[in-house]
């Protein structure tokens, strides 16, 4: 009886241990999933704000005395007119009680500096406006935008806040007159980098990413498929091919920054290719993507059953014809899937591109493979390193754009795999 009790007791203990262990395992997997959720939701919470920007309604008086400095009324005068003063005056007419110069300057900082040029264009297009009063929605500067979107920031002590109590009072006055609203942030999708958060956009780096990935694709895809076909189908088993395989496996695990050093030392310093150019970035990323596509190519070639090869050879095809006419077309969906996954890795890669100078501050949208440009993840890094508060939201929004492209590409890969891949 005593032994039976002992066993019963230990069985209870062991069962408890069993359920405890199972809970540990569940804890492991749920914590991994929780991390993912926290990352994604914290980025989303921050990033969604960047898709809206703040506009302030102002009655703008296009004062002919400011626009035309002399009497001949040339178009040149409009181009060089002091539109900052026009904006300042319009703000002043909303707050007639302010007369101090310093305070006026602070007030004129409410409006983004980009609006001066916009007003200039408006006048150039329609000269009838001169001398008239027009009600316009003008883009607010970044600090007003940040305060307006994050109401809890108004509660911070004045010295830690972006704007002073005085400015906050003005903002509240504008608010109570219903002269402020949030609207879609178009700048974010059509502009390149800028020093002012409200004028900075993701488009420049998107184009840069496109050029870079294009170079990567046209270099790595043919080379990797050729290498995969050779190693899987045609290569004799000898020391040389073994050595190639060891190299490929090793390259797949080399830290990405080492590829950046390679690009810096060879492509820039020896071959004198242009710094910061998508063509160099594409070449570096192509070297990194090669192993991924080679491995995918070999795996999908391996999946084609030997009967296909035997049938082709039985009908008199050569080995090369067998591969190019039959095996390769059948394995193409798998190869394409691997290529898209390799491309999406390349799209998210930034460390090697820092090495070859694609980390410059670039205001223009790149127009060719040789122009200085940056790429999406590096733009995110650049914005993160900028001190201005408005860039935090932009960075998160940039991450959202990057992630949505990755989701798109991976979705495409999954679609191709499910739609076209044959199960033998």
């Amino acid at each position, binding site marked *: 009886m005593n032994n039976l009790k002992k066993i019963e007791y230990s069985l209870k203990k062991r069962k408890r241990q069993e359920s405890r262990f199972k809970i540990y395992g569940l804890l492991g997997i749920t914590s991994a999933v929780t991390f993912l959720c926290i990352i994604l939701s914290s980025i989303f919470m921050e990033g969604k704000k960047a898709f809206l920007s703040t506009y302030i309604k102002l009655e703008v008086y296009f004062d002919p005395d400011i626009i035309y400095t002399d009497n001949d009324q040339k178009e040149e005068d409009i181009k060089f007119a002091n539109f900052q003063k026009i904006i300042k005056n319009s703000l002043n007419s909303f707050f007639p009680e302010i007369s101090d110069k310093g305070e006026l300057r602070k007030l004129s900082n409410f409006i983004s500096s980009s609006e001066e040029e916009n007003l200039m264009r408006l006048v150039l297009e329609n000269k009838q406006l001169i001398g008239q009063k027009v009600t316009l929605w003008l883009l607010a500067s970044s600090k007003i935008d940040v305060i307006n979107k994050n109401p809890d920031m108004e509660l911070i002590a004045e010295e830690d806040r972006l704007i002073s109590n005085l400015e906050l009072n003005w903002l509240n006055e504008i608010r109570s007159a219903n002269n402020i609203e949030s609207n879609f942030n178009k700048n974010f999708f059509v502009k390149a980098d800028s020093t002012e958060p409200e004028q900075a956009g993701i488009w420049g780096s998107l184009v840069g990413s496109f050029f870079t990935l294009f170079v990567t694709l046209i270099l790595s895809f043919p080379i990797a498929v050729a290498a995969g076909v050779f190693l899987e189908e045609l290569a004799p088993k000898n020391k040389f091919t073994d050595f190639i395989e060891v190299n490929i496996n090793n390259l797949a695990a080399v*830290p990405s920054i080492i590829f950046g050093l*390679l690009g810096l030392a*060879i492509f820039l310093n020896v071959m004198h290719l242009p710094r910061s150019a998508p063509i160099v970035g594409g070449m570096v990323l192509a070297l990194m993507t090669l192993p991924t596509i080679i491995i995918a190519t070999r795996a999908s070639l391996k999946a084609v059953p030997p009967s296909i090869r035997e049938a082709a050879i039985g009908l008199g095809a050569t080995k090369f014809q067998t591969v190019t006419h039959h095996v390769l077309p059948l394995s193409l969906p798998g190869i394409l899937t691997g290529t898209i996954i390799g491309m999406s890795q390349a799209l998210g890669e930034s460390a090697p591109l820092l090495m070859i100078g694609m980390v410059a501050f670039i205001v223009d949208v790149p127009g060719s493979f040789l122009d200085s440009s940056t790429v999406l993840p590096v733009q995110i*890094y650049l914005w993160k390193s900028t001190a201005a508060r408005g860039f935090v939201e932009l960075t998160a929004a940039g991450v959202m754009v*990057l992630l949505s492209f990755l989701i798109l590409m991976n979705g495409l890969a999954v679609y191709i795999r499910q739609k076209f891949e044959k199960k033998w």
Partner: protein
Amino acid sequence: MGFWSFFFILVVLGLSVHWYATNKALKLNAKLEKGSKLPSLPSYYGTYSLLLIIFPTSSLLLLWLVGKPFILEYILLQNIPEQLSANFDGAPSMLVDSIKAVDLERIFPGTNPLIVESATYFKDLNNYSNSFAYFSILIVAFLSSYFSLKKISTTFKARQAVEKSNINLLIFSSTIAIITTIGIIFSLIFEALRFFDEIPFFDFLFGLSWSPQTAIREGQIASQGVFGAIPIFSGTLLITLIAMSVAIPVGLLSAVYLSEYATPKVRQTFKPILEILAGVPTVVYGFFAAITVGPFFKDLANYSGFNIASESAIAAGGVMGIMIIPFISSLSDDVISAVPKSLRDASYAMGATKSETVKKIILPAALPGIIGAILLAVSRAIGETMIVVMAAGIAANLTANPFEAVTTVTVQIVTLLIGDQEFDSAKTLAAFALGITLFVATLFLNLLALKIVSKYRERYE
């Protein structure tokens, strides 16, 4: 001759030669008796002639593109007016650079007229030499197409020739991997050796202090750089350790749960979710670490009375650990699934519970594979760049306190090289010395891990 007109002529030539050769072979075949036709299909003759245009022209073009800067600079250097080179203090290469930098569309007032003259000369030289090169390449293309068209006959086996050249192309493509490895090793070693000319090897490897600011002007004493890499190595190790202490338990437990406990449906939902974690770009993790995790630990420390910076080893390491979870879990999932079913069945037959089987049978049996996975993960962690660049800090502290800011090998490589274009100071060369250390360390870890994993596979196959 501009590049695009050259390219256009080449493409037209190639297509027409391909078409002409195929047709010629077809006609020849039609004329020939049944037993004595051409040894290959007609299209192979077309392809052969096309390849005979592509190979010489593309290799000549590549040669020209690579060699052109050197040739032109040499010619320019020979033809610089003597007044200019005599009055210029500095290396001749700097003079060449300043000549090349002149934009002839917008000449600054006050630019030396001799330099402008040389720049005009250089521009003309560039244009003429390009035209000359394109023209000669086209002549080569015409000659080789003439030669290939002549070759079409019953004795010429075009298919064999085409296949042979194609296979050679495939072989060349697969040697790119070797060329890349050699390129990496040479570029790292070459620059690192220049660094070790200035800084003794052992001072670098065992020095306790790192501050890479070298003198800006010659003769400055105060800011001589100090290059002792121990604080950097220790920082890398600290962050790797933190990352592993997050990733190993979570990754391993997830792998055990998914492979031993989870129903197929649960497995099918959670495996892709873990893979999403692996697909998130590192810059996103870096942003998360810097914006969310760093300030979180800072607030936590402030709340409990400490004062730490928002850049800390624990923020960077912890987030890196999250990044590595899927790496460990999927690799160990593979090795756990590879443990033969007979071992599990034997254990259950002895009355062991599932957890006892996992702990006493499966994990020990899979241990080599798991260690291999962990080694791969470590190599991944020490080579990871963006997270630490964004969240770990750049000051080299020799500390084991996870709440302090430390720096890593990759952070130093990035900070030493960003914005610097001169490659003559110890500061920039140090990046390559760190790079080769990183390369050797990860190479060693990878080879060791692959060896362990393949040994383990052999045992159960």
